[in-house]
């Protein structure tokens, strides 16, 4: 996901050499210097814009609250069921310790602490079905 903010967009180069042409089926981007044309298919869902060209997909979106960089927490990386939360509020954990185990598509995914810390909040219980981005364990 590439986050586009008004501020961020304003700082981008103006792509003086790129000419865009939007129609109902897609967007053609022509590089007026090289003559290369890339044709993107697109689709919107809520605040996400999907683009696809040459077998690659690009996702543009609006930064959501709580997903800011540097947050010391384990959030659900996909929709799934909580299998285990082997920590409790007040526990001290080290980088690499398991904070939660999630199951989706019959496979288990282990979420590890990205840094040392103390558990300050548990956001789900074992057995819960959680959505993408749901807070599971927050560290100080």
């Amino acid at each position, binding site marked *: 996901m590439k986050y586009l903010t008004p501020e961020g967009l304003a700082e981008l180069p103006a792509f003086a050499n*790129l000419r865009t042409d*939007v129609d109902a089926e897609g967007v053609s*981007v022509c590089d007026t210097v090289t003559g290369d044309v890339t044709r993107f298919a697109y689709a919107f869902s809520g605040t996400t814009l999907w683009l696809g060209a040459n*077998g690659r*997909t690009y996702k543009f979106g609006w930064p959501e609250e709580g997903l800011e960089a540097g947050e010391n927490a384990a959030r659900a990386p996909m929709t799934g069921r909580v299998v285990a939360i082997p920590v409790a509020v007040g526990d001290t954990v080290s980088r690499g310790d398991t904070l939660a185990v999630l199951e989706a598509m019959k496979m288990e995914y282990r979420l590890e602490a990205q840094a040392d810390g103390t558990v300050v909040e548990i956001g789900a219980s074992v057995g819960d079905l959680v959505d993408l981005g749901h807070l599971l364990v927050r560290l100080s």
Partner: protein
Amino acid sequence: MPARKISKLLVANRGEIACRVFRTAERMGIRTCAVFTEHDEGAPHAEREAMQIGDYLDIEQVLAAALKLQADAIHPGYGFLAENPAFAEACEGEGIVFLGPTASTMRAIGDKSEARKTVIALGVPTSEGLGPFTSVEEIEAAARSLGPPLMLKAAAGGGGKGMKRIEHLEGIRDLIESAQRETNAAFGDSRMIVERYIHPARHVEVQIMGDGARCIALGERECSLQRRHQKIIEESPSPAVSKELRQRLMAAAIKIGELTGYRSAGTVEFLLDSEGGFYFLEVNARLQVEHPVTELITGLDLVQMQIEVAGGVSLPKQEDIRFRGHAIEARLNAEDPYAEFLPSSGRVLRLQWPEGVDGIRIDTGIGATVSSRYDSLLAKLIAHAEDREAARKKLVDALKATVLLGLNTNQGFLVDLLESPEFVSGRFSTSTIDNMDIVTPPTPDAAIAAACALLRGPTHGGSFPWNSVGSWELA
């Protein structure tokens, strides 16, 4: 059970495999019917006479549906009940043909620990292993006695579920418990076996087809490119298998199949070490995900053969099996390769396959939404050409011409993998993907420009915050 001509077939499965089996059945003039769950309402496989059930794993409900729909045969696909001997038995008990091996064959070889014993008795090499064990204590003791590196596997398993690599003994209990939960959830069986881990290794498997007495082998498939122990690119023939090795592998596979009275389609999996030695891994008592590469190079339809074998038609002779060209399959999965291949879900907003390309086969059964409830496989793209390089290029072109928007997929990663020096040279092992440094590719300026062009105009229905923000417009 005596040979029977099938008139109506139920597929006890979903997604691409259900659609693929229906295609052959319909071509053969056999009527078809389906089961679906609440999560698959309106899915392509259910677009026919169908009944809703609670769970594809529920033997009683599947059988009740088959009887109600008056099906006289069941194809189990792969996963779910495909290798469940109780299900095979229950089908035959109701007079319904089960398109797969018999329950007793499944017990003898579908179970990894039983298969190991059978194969050792035949003199086919296997890697050192112990089990099956049920208690965590026993599994841990076995692991300690063999010593790492080890593979922990579900005795009943397949598809990477419950499979864990043990690098060191520290934290081993967590791994065992996690593996047992996975295998229990997937197969309702928590028995594990512990095996010595062969490294570096290639995963090569032989397709067999049996009639209950005689078996034939339909060449090998190279399946070394795996992530999370699940294959993502398969091909036939294997670039690592010489003509002489192929003969030895096929002979071993036929021997294993015939000893167990194998009926229907099955796969005998082997590991190849770097010295050209091979070790029996397991028998998959089912039609496998990657069977199309074998179909393309042999010109045979394996589902048709399964139906014919059940109907008493005799198998082709081994010497009449011909191999033509090279076939490569790529599995398009709902997953994020740039976030440790985590599965993704979402609504399919746009879907477009390359159309009318000669030598490209697409097996798909994608519905309008992809839920995290089922396997992440969305579709298989399979290329067939006169040689490996031509097939590779054809598959890359097909992936590049595919559009699937609305959820994260491994589409771009598959292109990168097919164009990697490892794949191009044919020199790779089961740990090649694990050892790759997979980073999110940069977003090209053209994509940003396209996004800006779309967000500028009133051409879309998205509720972007930009709409209310104002002065950000780009030149």
